[in-house]
Structures are given as structure tokens and as C-alpha cells.
């Protein structure tokens, strides 16, 4: 029985079942130090010596899945503990969890551990990977506004896909020296739209102008349209409603006349109208 176990820092695994034994590999305690809120009692708790060939295999057999955020905690311990470095092959451990060890990945692990704890927990529960967290590497110094945002994201139960976009766009705005828009009473989805507008102000203005212009067209009854951005292109979405084929056809004809008149209109922006003349400069 060991008197001074060396526990590995596996975060968010504190609910180790009461009846389970503690798992060791050499001096390293792989299961959590705390069992259902009861500290390890080396005298009475049963322990199991794992027979794996290496520590990384022992960890993997105990924890078939570890998130990138959990690995960040373990990495923090590993890089400050020469004895652990000697026994744990970090590259092999990462490979076991589907990550290819590299310097950018190690730097991301280090950055993640410096972020507010609620955000780390959120990153763990949402299984964020190194690419999702790449924005963290662009911050050379801690940024209180960014930290506040991260805490808000964690507390707002933001979904992974929305959260990853918020992270990147808000991070870029802060790095551009801009203030983040207020989050008061906004849901993450709405906040993302707000951020997108601020990150791409020219494109948003261009879209608003086009829609403003569209609203001035003499739309036939029960016809409507709006400009949308689809990838890098603007597309015009048009709705035509009718209670029978003839009605739809009539409205389409009316709509066609409106569009034809619009195409001939001299108020079109130059970028749409300019047509290079014939010649070799084509």
C-alpha cells in the first residue's frame, strides 16, 4: 500500500464511484484522489496496480475518452513535473486520444489552462478541439474583456457551433482594438449575428443597401424578395404566392416586368453595370 500517492490531474472526473478500487501505475494514481467526496484512504481503500506496459496505455485503459480540455490539465502537470515527463510519453498519449502532438497543439493546451475555469469546463463538455480554440494563440497577453466573454458563453449554455464562431469573431474584434457589443439580454445566437455585423461592417452595409433598394420596387401583390449572402455571393430570394397556376404565372409575368425595368434603371451601382467593351483588354 502506498503512503504518498502521486495523483494525475484528470479534471472533471471527481465522481469516481465509491465502491471502485483506486488504479495505480507505478507511483501514479490514475483514478481521482477523491472518491465521491471522500478522500483516498490508503489504509482501507482497495487499489489495483494496472499491468499496462506504459503509463499512457494505463491512462487510456482507465479513461477511454479524455477531452482536449482534460488533456490540458494533464499537460500542465506533465510539463512542470520531470518525473512524470520521464514516465509518460506525451506524444503517445495524445495519439491515443486522436490528437497529433505538435507545437501549436501544446501551445493551445497551455493557453486553455489559463482561461476562466467555467470556460474550461464548457470546452470540456462541448468537446472543443485545438482548431476550435486557435484564436487563443493570437492573444499574447490576458484580456479581461475576452475572459468576461468566455465566462458569459459558459454560463449562457452556448452550443458548440455558435460558441466556436463567437469565440473567433469576438476575439478578432478585440484584437482589432474594438469594443465588444453589449450582451445584455441577448441569446448566444443573436449575439453571434451582432458580432458578425460588427466584424464585417462593409458587407453588412452593402447587404442592407441592396435590401433597402429592393424594398422600393413596385412588387406585385403577394410577391416579395430579399437579398441573402450565400457563401461569397449575394443571391436574390424571391417568393411568389398564388392560389392556382394561372395566378402564379400572372404574378411571375408582373414580377418579370418589374425586374426588367430595374435592369434598365440608371440607378444601378457601377460594379454591376460596368461591361468591359470589346477588344483585347478583355
Amino acid at each position, binding site marked *: 500500500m502506498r503512503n504518498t500517492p502521486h495523483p494525475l490531474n484528470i479534471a472533471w472526473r471527481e465522481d469516481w464511484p465509491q465502491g471502485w478500487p483506486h488504479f495505480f501505475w507505478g507511483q501514479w494514481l490514475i483514478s481521482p484522489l477523491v472518491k465521491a467526496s471522500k478522500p483516498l484512504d490508503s489504509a482501507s481503500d482497495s487499489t489495483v496496480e494496472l499491468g499496462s506496459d506504459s503509463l499512457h496505455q494505463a491512462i487510456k485503459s482507465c479513461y477511454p475518452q479524455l477531452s482536449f480540455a482534460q488533456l490540458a490539465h494533464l499537460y500542465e502537470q506533465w510539463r512542470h513535473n520531470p518525473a512524470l515527463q520521464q514516465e509518460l510519453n506525451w506524444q503517445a498519449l495524445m495519439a491515443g486520444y486522436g490528437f*497529433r502532438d*505538435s*507545437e*501549436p*497543439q501544446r*501551445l493551445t493546451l497551455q493557453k486553455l489552462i489559463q482561461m476562466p475555469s467555467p470556460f474550461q469546463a464548457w470546452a470540456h463538455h462541448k468537446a472543443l478541439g485545438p*482548431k476550435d480554440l*486557435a*484564436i487563443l*494563440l*493570437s492573444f499574447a497577453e490576458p484580456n479581461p474583456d475576452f475572459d468576461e466573454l468566455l465566462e458569459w458563453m459558459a454560463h449562457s449554455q452556448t452550443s458548440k457551433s455558435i460558441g466556436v464562431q463567437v469565440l473567433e469573431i469576438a476575439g*478578432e474584434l478585440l*484584437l*482589432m*482594438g474594438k469594443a465588444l457589443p453589449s450582451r445584455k439580454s441577448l441569446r448566444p445566437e443573436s449575439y453571434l449575428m451582432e458580432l458578425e455585423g460588427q*466584424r*464585417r*461592417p*462593409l*458587407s453588412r452595409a*452593402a447587404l442592407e443597401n441592396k435590401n433597402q433598394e429592393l424594398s422600393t420596387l413596385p412588387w406585385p401583390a403577394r410577391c416579395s424578395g430579399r437579398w441573402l*449572402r450565400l*457563401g*461569397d*455571393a*449575394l443571391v436574390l430570394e424571391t417568393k411568389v404566392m398564388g392560389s392556382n397556376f394561372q395566378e402564379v404565372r400572372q404574378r411571375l409575368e408582373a414580377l418579370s416586368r418589374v425586374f426588367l425595368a430595374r435592369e434598365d434603371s440608371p440607378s444601378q451601382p*457601377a*460594379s*454591376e453595370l*460596368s*461591361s*468591359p*467593351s470589346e*477588344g*483585347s*483588354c*478583355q
Partner: protein
Amino acid sequence: MKNLSKQQQDLSRLIDQFERVSIDEVIRKSPLAQRLIELFPSEKIEFVTSRPYPEVSGELSAGEFARSKRHLFLTEFRGQFFKRCPGAKPGLTCCNYFVLNWGQQCDMNCSYCYLQSFLNSPVLVIYSNLDQALDELRLLAKSMGHQSLRVGTGELVDSLSLDPLTLFSHQLIEFFQDHPQWTLEFKTKSDSVEQFLEQDHRGNVIVSWSINPQKVIEQEEHGTASLEKRLKAAELCLDKGFQVAFHMDPMIWHEDWRENYSALVDELTSRFRPESIPYLSLGALRFQPEQRHMMRERFGLKSWVNQAEMFTGKDGKLRYPLELRQEMFNFVLGRFKEHSPHWKVFLCMESPETWLATHQRAPQKIDSLAPLFDHKVTRSHRQSQELRAKERAT
């Protein structure tokens, strides 16, 4: 520095720039290795049996990428040197272009450089066995020798910035003397041309410059030659009978883009005649989505490239909004036309929609550009490759 020739200045800059030169033992006796051993101080040279930094694999960090530009590794290439330009993909309208890669990584430092998402070598690599590449070309000449083919060397390296060290231009120009129906294209942002200016050639060598307004160069194209130096080098090449072309690519949107690109067109048109420039390509900023992380980390959000409002294009790359690209292309085309209708301008790596919006026709239908987009050539290359593969298989 003042008394040194331009070529000596270039050499001196490169010798200072590289902190370490690792030479693969296997090619220690190659002419290029011998040249580098002579040029570099012995304390910078080491002989190795494998690539430096063997522990580095996969994606590079920003720091590793920056370091790779200062560490030269001379080795031999084991593989096929010659391949088709990556622009030739479904969804893009691309010119016929073949690439010959004699190395990888660039000693210059453009914020938008696509090598940031493309390379994972922790060192700048130069291959010593250019002879083998020329053998591949000789073989290709057997099946395609009668066709006009463009071969470029500026895909994974700048064609000329390292040339004062390697002098590869000498071998390449000499080879193309025997293949006058083919065209060799050097593509550069440097002004290193003196080392080949006196070389005999058959007029089938194009030296092309990627150009941008000086303000964009200062802001985004770090370690490259100034616009003035690039244009002066282009004039020197023209004087010696080399063909000269320009790539206004990538055009980068910024607040004064109209004024700056207009001034660039004025400068070009005042110094060059359209008849002496076989083509001029236009392209707008574009990059792979995953590249944005390293760009942001390395150049910050003050960079116009990182501030750009980008959207995912049909090919998956991040691009300016289509309407903005069309506006930029139309603007520059219009400026060229104001000077002369004879400038031969085409779009690089753009969608058919953009071609139609700016030129109103696909490039194959435009008389002056049709030869560049003659896909019979690439089809023939593909067929000959398939034939060779079949022969090997049997």
C-alpha cells in the same frame, strides 16, 4: 555594400539571413553543396544524415514557421518534380500551367502567403538534383515537345529570390534553349535578376513579377523588393530580350485601394508597352480557411489581410464578396483600357461567374487569351501520363 555589385549584395543578404545551413551528407559533393560551403561561413554549415528537427511533424506553430525561413536544408528530391498547377481544379477557370518545384518555403514573408497552410517542413528546403527535374522534362518532351507548354518554378518557392545562391536559372534557361516551343516562367517578388541577364536564351523565358501598390507591399509583403526595384528589374530583363509579365495578385482591399491601384496601373503603363507584356493576371486575396489562424498569429489584426471581410467561395477558400471582387477587377481593367485597349489582362483562380461579370466571356473565347487556356495541352499531358502509367503497370 555600396561598392558591391547587385548580385553580391543579394548574396550577402542571403548569407546574413540564414542562421543555419544543413547539408545532407548524401549530396555533400554536389556542385550546389560545394557552392554553399564556399559561400557561407563554416560556423553556419552542418552536415546531417536526416532532416533537421526530426521531432517536428505535422502542423507547424507560428514560431516554427518563422524559424523555417532562416534555416536552409540542402538535400535531394526523391519523387516527381513536374506537375500541373493546383489552380486547375473543378469550379475554377484556370490557365495551362505546369510547375517544377526545386524546393519548398520562401525566404520572404508575405502575410497572405499560402505556404502557411501548405507546408509542414520546419526548414527551407532546396533540392540539389535539378538535373533529375530536367531529365523529367526531357522525357515529357518526347510526348509533348511539339506543343506549347508553360512551366513555372514559383509554386512552393519564389523563383528568383534564392537564385543568387543556387544559380538554377542558368541550368533552366539553358535547357529551354533546346525547347523553344516551351516557355519557362520565373515568378518573383524579388529583384534578383542580374545573375542570369547575360545568359543566352531563345526568347522563351518569361520573368514575371507579382506586384502591388507600394503601400500594400509595405503593409503585407515583408522582406520583398519594393515596387520600384521590381519594375526596374523588369526593365533590365526586357532590355536583355526576356519576356516580362505581371501578376497583380493578390489585390488587397484597403481604404484607398482605388487610388493606389490606379497609381499602380499608371506606373506600369507609363513604363511598359502592352505589346511587350504577353499577359497580366489579376487575382484577389484568397486563402484556405485553416490558414487564417497562423496569419492572425503571425501578423496580427493590423494586417489588412487579417482585417478583411472574407466569405467562403465555391472552392472552399475564403474570398472577398463576389460583388467586391468584380468591382475591383472592373476598376483595374477599366484603368488599363483607359491607357490602351491592347493590354492582355486575365483573371487568376477565379470562378466562371467572375470571368463573365468582368469580361463577359469565358477566357477560351477571348482571342488574346485563348492560347493560355487551351486545354488540349493539359489533356494531352494527362493522356501521356496515363499512357506511361499503363506502360509501367504492364
